[in-house]
């Protein structure tokens, strides 16, 4: 094999002139990359996506390590030092309406807020993903049944359904998680089903079947590989939605309850203080906004890297 490089070859009809033209073509050991290697290369070369991933990692790392960062207790109240402005000595981001350190509460708040944004999507991914795979792959009556039930849940606006379920079950983190999970199962089922149905009718699946591959083997090697990309992109969008909705539930008193540190709940309790300390009141919502936007931008980056259309 020749060393990698380029070589000149003559084409009888050039693309521009229609006359014989010399063009450069790559020759020799061309690097072979798998699909996922290509996706990884494209994602890591996209500065926006990388920046968002770094911001998210920083928020997540701070949240995970919160108890060991030497911050004041997030629930430690101090009635003498209430609503200190942002930039006060000892309290960089000020204090809240009960004199609790805002920086500590925002970092600790990330634990609950991120968890409540991500966990429902993961659970819904497992349940909705399986339901969609089954519906798409089996087809027929099973598909009918699963997709009609999905249609019914689709008939509710997502926030209304989340509020209705959480409201019926009563306040609490567990109930809020359950409510948001139920909200996300139908859309995931629908996307998985539509992608699976498309893949199932492709020639290579037919070929695999003709050469004697079993159903499970086909699903594992052919269907899953093609379905995972779009589903993954979709799931990152849903996480950004989930963070906003779950914080919204806490905001109206249906999720986390005081004195827990959670961004939506903090936004709610600080709402009374917008006259005295507007900047402090804005901060928790700003965190929800940034986190949600990062997930959205990452999803955009993944979408173009994988060339997915949803």
């Amino acid at each position, binding site marked *: 094999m020749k060393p990698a490089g380029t070589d000149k070859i003559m084409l009888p009809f050039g693309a521009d002139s229609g006359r014989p033209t010399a063009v450069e073509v790559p020759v020799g050991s061309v690097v072979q990359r798998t699909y996922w290697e290509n996706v990884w290369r494209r994602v890591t070369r996209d500065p926006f996506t990388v920046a968002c991933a770094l911001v998210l990692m920083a928020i997540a790392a701070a949240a995970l390590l919160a108890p060991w960062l030497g911050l004041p207790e997030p629930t430690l109240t101090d009635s003498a030092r209430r609503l200190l402005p942002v930039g006060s000595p000892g309290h960089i981001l000020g204090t809240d309406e009960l004199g609790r350190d805002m920086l500590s509460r925002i970092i600790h708040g990330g634990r609950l807020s991120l968890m409540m944004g991500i966990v429902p999507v993961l659970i819904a991914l497992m349940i909705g993903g399986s339901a969609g795979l089954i519906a798409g792959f089996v087809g027929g009556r099973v598909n009918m049944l699963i997709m*009609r*039930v999905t*249609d*019914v*849940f689709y*008939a*509710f*606006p*997502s*926030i*209304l359904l989340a*509020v*209705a*379920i959480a*409201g*019926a*079950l*009563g306040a609490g983190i567990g109930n809020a998680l359950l409510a948001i999970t139920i909200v996300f199962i139908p859309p995931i089922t629908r996307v998985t089903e539509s992608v699976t149905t498309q893949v199932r009718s492709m020639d290579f699946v037919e070929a695999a079947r003709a050469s004697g591959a079993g159903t499970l083997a086909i699903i594992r090697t052919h269907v899953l590989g093609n379905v995972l990309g779009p589903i993954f992109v979709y799931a990152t969008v849903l996480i*950004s939605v989930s963070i*906003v909705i779950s*914080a*919204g539930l806490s*905001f*109206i*008193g*249906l999720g986390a309850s005081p004195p827990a540190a959670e961004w939506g709940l903090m*936004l709610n309790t600080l*709402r009374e203080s*917008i*006259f005295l300390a*507007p900047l402090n*009141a*804005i901060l928790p*919502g*700003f965190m*929800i*906004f940034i986190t*949600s*936007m990062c*997930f*959205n*931008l990452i999803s*955009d980056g993944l979408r173009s890297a994988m060339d997915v259309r949803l």
Partner: protein
Amino acid sequence: MFYYILRRVLYTIPIAIGVSLVVFALVHLAPGDPLSAVMGEVDQKMLAEMRASFGYDKPLPVQYIIWLGSALTGDMGYSLRTGAPVFGTLIDAAANTMIIGTAAALLGFIIGATFGMLAGYNHGAWLDKVVSSATIAGVSVPHYWLAILLVIVFSVQLGWMPAMGAGSAASILSWEAWKHMILPVIALAAIPCAIVARTARACVMEILSMEFVEALRARGLSERRILLHVARNALPTVLAVMGLQFAHLLGGSILVETVFTWPGTGYLLNLAIFDRDIPVLQGTILLLALFFVSINLVVDILQTWADPRISRG
């Protein structure tokens, strides 16, 4: 086309029944019956009498039939908290939600569609970059936070707008009433505006790459005429997204209405949840969900009108 529409209309019936089942089942997810949560510790005999008078002593399937039957005739029972008929309360609240929802939809759709189309048409230009960044921010922003931001800037700092309520103006055409609506409408319009802009932009970009546009250019049509053709082709998709967003606006206004204490369905729902006022809760969710279903139906029909290929597909 007619048969397609008929089929689509008939299909909403099982969906609507499914929706009513879900709404009914929802409130029975919680342990205990609706009354015990409100009444607390009372005489057992009195509780049993109350139960019988509200019909909560019957088996669930029977309760469902009775509830659905009376709901269909406009009788949704009485509020456990105020004793007022649920239907009347609901209609008043729905009218208030409809006012800010429609205003927000108009505002968001016009701005979103215009800028989305321009961005798609001038792909890569500075306008496109600004619109793209704004839409990403718009779809990610928690609208309840945006509402608080607006209150802080325009009510607290500048003092231009009232921070809450619907005001006491007699007519919704007065400035007094408008003043109360502006902030909630902007907060509600942000997300639909961003989503419509995003869709319009993607749609226009895709259509511009189609061969018929090339053919139009070759025939020497002016850019304005071409843009008109592009807009016509983008219409079905953008229309569908608008319909869905309008429905989401009305159903999802609960958080914004809570911030502004705007007396609409969302605020009513919020009160009903914390008072455990089951008849109001059920009625509000049912009304909003059925409304959502019917908007989806209208959107589908409008879509077949805008793009006849759908009904033949």
